[in-house]
């Protein structure tokens, strides 16, 4: 055989095929990064001073102090936990009708648009911004937090529920419809069995998210363990702050494991 085979090979570009576009893109990214990094004006002396504080924080994290602020911590914790549970229950309860209303294959057009609008508003606004407004309206404390989390839950659960209902197996619904079932019977027999396991899974997941969020909205006065944490950091009590953070991490781990266990148990 005397055929000469090539001795070089280059991997062909996979995404941007045109060489000029590729160079332009790479250049653009470089310029953006340079510009972006140049906006970061770091006060190095301040950072240097902060190192000592950072060290104290890490020490506080490793040797947390649960005892000296235990009253504040336990009250914040009770507020957070109760807020989490009540808001998840109420949020899910409201989400179910809204979710059904936002499913194109079940609801009339005008109801569909109203429900989708509610979902869109709830998803677009962040918990912390909602909390700011609700605290202004309802006063400080966990009640405002409860309302915030309930509202946020609606956007989350109703959206996923509606998407789920829209994706259900049409043939099953068809079969039930063919028996002459009413709309309510249709929902009960064709839709509910198909989406119920998912709904329970999503609710447990949201419970977890709501707890994590309850630790944040306290910063703007909506009660919960976030308020305790905020105070501890403001006072530079890093050992107490470390304790609060460890409690949050611990509870999130516990809810994550138990919710995955519960989901397996329920299915």
């Amino acid at each position, binding site marked *: 055989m005397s055929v000469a085979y090539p001795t070089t090979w280059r991997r062909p570009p996979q995404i941007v095929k045109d060489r000029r576009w590729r160079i332009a893109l790479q250049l653009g990214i470089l310029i953006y990064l340079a510009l972006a990094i140049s*906006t970061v004006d770091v006060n190095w002396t301040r950072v240097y001073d902060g190192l000592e504080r950072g060290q104290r924080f890490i020490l506080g994290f490793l040797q947390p102090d649960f005892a000296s602020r235990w009253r504040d911590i336990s009250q914040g914790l009770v507020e957070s936990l109760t807020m989490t549970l*009540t808001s998840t229950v109420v949020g899910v309860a409201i989400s179910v009708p809204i979710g059904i209303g936002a499913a194109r294959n079940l609801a009339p057009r005008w109801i569909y648009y109203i429900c989708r609008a509610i979902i869109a508003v709830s998803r677009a606004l962040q918990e912390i911004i909602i909390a700011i407004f609700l605290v202004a309206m309802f006063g400080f404390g966990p009640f405002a937090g409860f309302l915030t989390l309930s509202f946020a839950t609606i956007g989350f659960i109703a959206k996923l529920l509606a998407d789920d209902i829209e994706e259900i197996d049409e043939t099953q619904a068809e079969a039930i419809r063919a028996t002459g079932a009413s709309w309510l019977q249709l929902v009960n027999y064709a839709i509910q069995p198909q989406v119920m396991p998912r709904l329970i899974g999503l609710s447990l997941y949201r419970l977890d998210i709501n707890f994590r969020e309850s630790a944040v909205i306290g910063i703007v006065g909506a009660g919960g363990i976030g308020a305790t944490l905020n105070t501890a950091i403001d006072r530079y009590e890093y050992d107490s702050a470390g304790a609060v953070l460890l409690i949050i*991490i611990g509870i999130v781990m516990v809810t994550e494991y138990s919710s995955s266990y519960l989901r397996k148990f329920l299915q």
Partner: protein
Amino acid sequence: MTEIPHHSQVWTYRTPRKRLMLWGGWLALVALFVWCWQLMTRDTIWAFVADAPSQAADIGNRMIPPRLSYLPELMPPLWDTINIATLGTIGGVIMAVPVAFLAARNTTPSVHVLRPIALFIIVASRSINSLIWALLLVAIIGPGILAGIVAIALRSIGFVGKLLYEAIEETDARQIEAVTATGASAAQVLSYGIVPQIMPAFWGISVFRWDINIRESTILGLVGAGGIGLKLQASLNVLAWPQVTMILILILATVVLSEWVSARMRHAII
């Protein structure tokens, strides 16, 4: 099920025992709810709650119309916000990649030591909201963009790390076996057998997280970590409601735009 033990005459949806457990479960949930509700509302001042509608109407009236002339002043902090999100995402992804490889069952060098550590890093980062990270970092290294970037990066490790290690665990073992069979070293198996398989997931996750980070970095300013949230905080402090409306509209527009960009990019990648 191999055989049905008995045939009862009356058909029921569930066995009596199961039904009892189900009802018990619901009852327990209701009781728990009532108990929690009472605990939570112990200190609630109901007069404030009753007053809420009029408060809402009052704030609503003050918020309209938004102060359009405020818009130019918002552009530099908006630019900062985008930079916080982008640089924070890049930093977070860079830190998340090694953590993910340590956490994935099929790539971790030690199942009993490094894997639990990596999983703890992921859980810790995921449990703590970026706002809390920002709160801490502002206290430690002072207010400014840097605190925001680091906060976003620290929060991103857990998210990216978790999704990425799941992607690594889902890789096709046969492809890895085939690369191993050629006599490749561990590093070569990684770069030929595993990395090509997780590349689409990697880019998808990174862009997805960037989108979330844009959303989160808009509020970091509330605790002093730079960006448009600083303006929000300042306007709220002086009760300048028309400015608040303007900021909220701008945040909303940014979030919608970033969601669109990320959807387009993920579509192009996959």
